[in-house]
């Protein structure tokens, strides 16, 4: 590049910045956001991202339901969330501006594509009068650019049709943002080469648009200066990549199967936001992974249980509505005592609810949502990268205890991203599955010290046996309706669940070992809770935090921890499901539920305000 960064305009340092790219769902905002993310990651920023897109594939162009957004928070210090309020809003049309303006920080920057603010555009977005003219944007720094026109001019010599030229708008916009935040273009230029390998015209056009946007920053003096967000130097040393929750979870499942020395058999049925796990695993055939897209959610889990019965690691991945359908089969897996991993990427319910929005409302369904006493361990990942670790943990518990395990993630984790410090493979502890082959003294429902029964592959000579969902006689596994035996078996299954506690750590408290408030979270609330508690501690408040990754059974040691705090605040994206469990498990402590069910994650500000409110009351 010939352009010297910041030669004419002042370069200011900023610690952290939040940008939200917003446009029509066909405008390529997710690509734009992901490119900005990749470049920032390689620059060494800590970061967190959150896409926000409609459930509709293409809602009518220019309308508010069709707005797709991508928020990135990048920083030179440790961060835990994609940021509460954007510093910069890139609005590609009036609908994007109208939908997102309310979130923008006071005095923030709005980059607006005036090329899409004609009367028809305003009408489609139901915006009247134009916000560009009615002074409603007076509290912001508004940068008006006719990106449609700029791209047209920049690509005047391109052989692409005028429609295809306009599709390069997002790269012009990205170039502009790269200039504003002093980012290099190389990562994206290379990505375009790779992406459109077979279409050199598209590579060239998009690269030209990117460079034109970048150069426009200097030439047109739209901005008062450039900013720089230096690399984050508090991140632990190691090798990193940026990762979203669902890809991390998929990799974790493959890793878990390797550590168990098993091949995966995934039974799945497409459902937002879990389908990406099916997509990703279906590309890992050379890892021995079998994926089967079944006819429905029930068939998906049944095929997975069949896989486990035959000696594979059965896995199924779904979301809330699918969990409801799978309930009966989960009960069979409990009764047959077979390993199985059930992944639930939670979304807003009930019923179809809001498929692309976040909620933590499947907790009670996961713990209790089956007929009969059907105890199952439930885990919850807390960050996108943690999805990797928790997927391994789910495989471990399933295999070591011969039990189905539910792993909860959610829509915030599945699509959000963060830098992932890559594990050293030698640090991953193996838990090789043991298959019984010795007929001597074999009993299908004998148990080892963990309470697990022997796993036998059909095809093993001398160990032929029959099992099913009817109650089984202890040890022999024969059908048995005896009263005392049923109580014994019910207690044995429960005891096996509780035995899982012996293999899970007591979570650590961050902050004072005794204080006025302990903030307890589980799942994806970790980010905003960490940010809010960190800030409270810096402000001298008497606050600490604890986070649960094993949500059922609960780990040992919590009772003693809870006894050191006056009040335990439990923020959840539900109406207090975990708080309800804690109240019944630890009735002597003072739990305070903080519910948010807007289809959106908590912000740091939300939790900070709640902590302050409690401390002041």
């Amino acid at each position, binding site marked *: 590049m010939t352009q010297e960064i910041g030669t004419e305009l002042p370069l200011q340092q900023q610690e952290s910045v939040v940008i939200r790219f917003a446009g029509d769902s066909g405008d390529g905002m997710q690509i734009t956001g992901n490119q900005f993310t990749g470049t920032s990651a*390689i620059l060494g920023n800590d970061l967190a991202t959150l896409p926000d897109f409609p459930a509709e594939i293409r809602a009518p162009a220019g309308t508010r339901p069709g707005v797709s957004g991508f928020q990135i928070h990048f920083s030179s210090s440790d961060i835990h969330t994609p940021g509460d309020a954007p510093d910069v809003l890139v609005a590609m049309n009036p609908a994007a501006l109208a939908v997102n303006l309310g979130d923008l920080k006071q005095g923030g920057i709005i980059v607006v594509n005036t090329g899409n603010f004609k009367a028809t555009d305003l009408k489609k977005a139901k915006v009247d009068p134009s916000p560009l003219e009615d002074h409603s944007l007076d509290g912001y720094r508004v940068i008006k650019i006719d990106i449609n026109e700029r791209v047209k001019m920049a690509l005047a010599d391109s052989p692409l049709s005028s429609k295809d030229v306009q599709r390069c708008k997002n790269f012009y916009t990205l170039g502009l943002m790269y200039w504003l935040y002093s980012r290099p273009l190389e990562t994206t230029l290379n990505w375009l080469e790779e992406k459109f390998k077979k279409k050199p015209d598209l590579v060239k056009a998009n690269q030209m648009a990117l460079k034109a946007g970048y150069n426009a920053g200097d030439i047109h003096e739209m901005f008062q200066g450039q900013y720089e967000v230096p690399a984050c130097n508090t991140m632990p040393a190691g090798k990193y990549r940026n990762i979203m929750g669902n890809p991390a979870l998929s990799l974790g499942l*493959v890793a878990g199967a390797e550590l168990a020395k098993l091949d995966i058999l995934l039974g799945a049925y497409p459902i937002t936001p879990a389908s990406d796990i099916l997509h990703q695993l279906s590309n890992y055939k050379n890892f021995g992974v079998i994926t089967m897209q079944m006819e429905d959610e029930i068939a*998906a889990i049944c095929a997975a249980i069949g896989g486990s*019965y035959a000696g594979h690691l059965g896995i199924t991945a779904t979301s809330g509505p699918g969990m409801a359908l799978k309930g009966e089969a989960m009960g069979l897996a409990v009764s047959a005592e077979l390993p199985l991993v059930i992944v639930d990427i939670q979304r807003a319910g009930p019923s179809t609810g809001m498929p692309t929005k976040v909620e933590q409302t499947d907790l009670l369904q996961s713990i209790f949502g089956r007929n009969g006493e059907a105890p199952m361990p439930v885990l919850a990942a807390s960050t996108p990268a943690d999805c990797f670790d928790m997927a391994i943990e789910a495989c471990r518990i399933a295999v070591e205890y011969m039990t189905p395990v539910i792993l909860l993630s959610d829509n915030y984790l599945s699509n959000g991203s963060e830098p992932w410090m890559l594990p050293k*493979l030698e640090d991953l502890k193996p838990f090789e599955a043991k298959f019984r082959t010795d007929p001597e003294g074999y009993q299908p429902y004998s148990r080892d010290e963990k309470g697990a029964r022997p796993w036998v592959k059909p*095809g093993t000579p001398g160990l032929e046996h*029959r099992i099913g969902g009817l109650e089984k006689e202890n040890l022999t596994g024969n059908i048995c309706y005896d009263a005392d035996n049923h109580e014994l078996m019910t207690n044995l299954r429960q005891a096996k669940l509780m035995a899982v506690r012996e293999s899970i750590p007591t979570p650590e408290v961050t902050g004072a070992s005794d204080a006025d408030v302990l903030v307890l979270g589980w799942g994806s609330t970790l980010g905003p809770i960490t940010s809010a508690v960190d800030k409270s501690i810096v402000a001298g408040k008497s606050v600490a935090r604890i986070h649960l990754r094993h949500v059922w059974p609960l780990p040992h040691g919590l009772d003693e921890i809870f006894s050191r705090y006056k009040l335990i605040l439990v923020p959840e994206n539900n109406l207090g499901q975990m708080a309800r469990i804690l109240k019944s498990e630890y009735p002597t402590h003072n739990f305070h539920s903080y519910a948010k069910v807007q289809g959106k994650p908590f912000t740091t500000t939300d939790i900070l305000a709640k902590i302050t409110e409690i401390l002041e009351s």
Partner: protein
Amino acid sequence: MSVTIAPLTKKDLKSDQDVRWCPGCGDYAILNAAQGALAKLGIPKENFMWVSGIGCSSRFPYYMDCYGFHTIHGRAPAFATGIKTANPELSVWIATGDGDCFSIGGNHIIHLLRRNVDVKVLLFNNEIYGLTKGQYSPTSPVGHRSKSTPVGSVDRPFNPLSVALGAGATFVARTMDNDMKHMTLTINQSAAHKGTAFVEIYQNCVIFNDGAFNEVAEKSVRKSKTIDLQPGQPMVYGAEDEKGLRLREFHVERCTAEEADIWDPTDASPARAFLMAQLDQDPEMPNPIGILRMIDAPIFDLEVTKQVTDAVEKKGRGKLEDLIYAGDLWDVE
């Protein structure tokens, strides 16, 4: 590598469990026929895998001394698909009933058939719900009086053969619980088929629907009320095999034995098989038994596992390190 397999006897496949069907139930004969047929297949008993759902027929696996999985209502085809794909070496069998297969399990059976998973399905059709004590089923005839239809059912029933043919089944056959010889033959034929084999068995429920098939299956009328369709054989029936059927355009007509067509279940088009399946509707016509359809098609479990072995062969067995340490990486010092 050749392994000598000690031949099995029927007794080898009898489990130590007490059989708990009602005295006189047709299931006993089916169990007996299956044990006899399977023992002679030359398959080691540890490779037999019976899968079932819920219902009287679904107790079947408990009585076979091999691997057995008694699962949940209607879902046996999905479990069997998982098991067979995880280990295509197994000889996987499903025992199911008309409610299990065509009511609650309707979705799964059609998908098993269309995928052509190498699984054998024995449908015990007694046109009634037995285990729940006597409600009409999706194969009960219109007007059937049962506990849940005191003035007669109004639902039009499924014809199991037509449903299987419509779902693209590659092997479709029918037999009867009171004809041990034919039942054994049909089970053997289904075992020899590569792909999903669907076998409907007229099964008598002595308690809730006794004699449902007497009009066609009773020994004294069977020869004239059924026609045994066998590949390459003339389509003849009657006490002395004196009657015949022939296909003319889109209908089936009766004729003399000499004029009868030769039956070919391997025809690329299922049209003739459909016509034969529909004969049940016509009281003047014999009900078809034997093999209605028998064609070759790609087999799901082999295709799925081939994609996996091909990928391993082409790319080598994947290394976790390559998967994790992939994409744009950076170092933090």
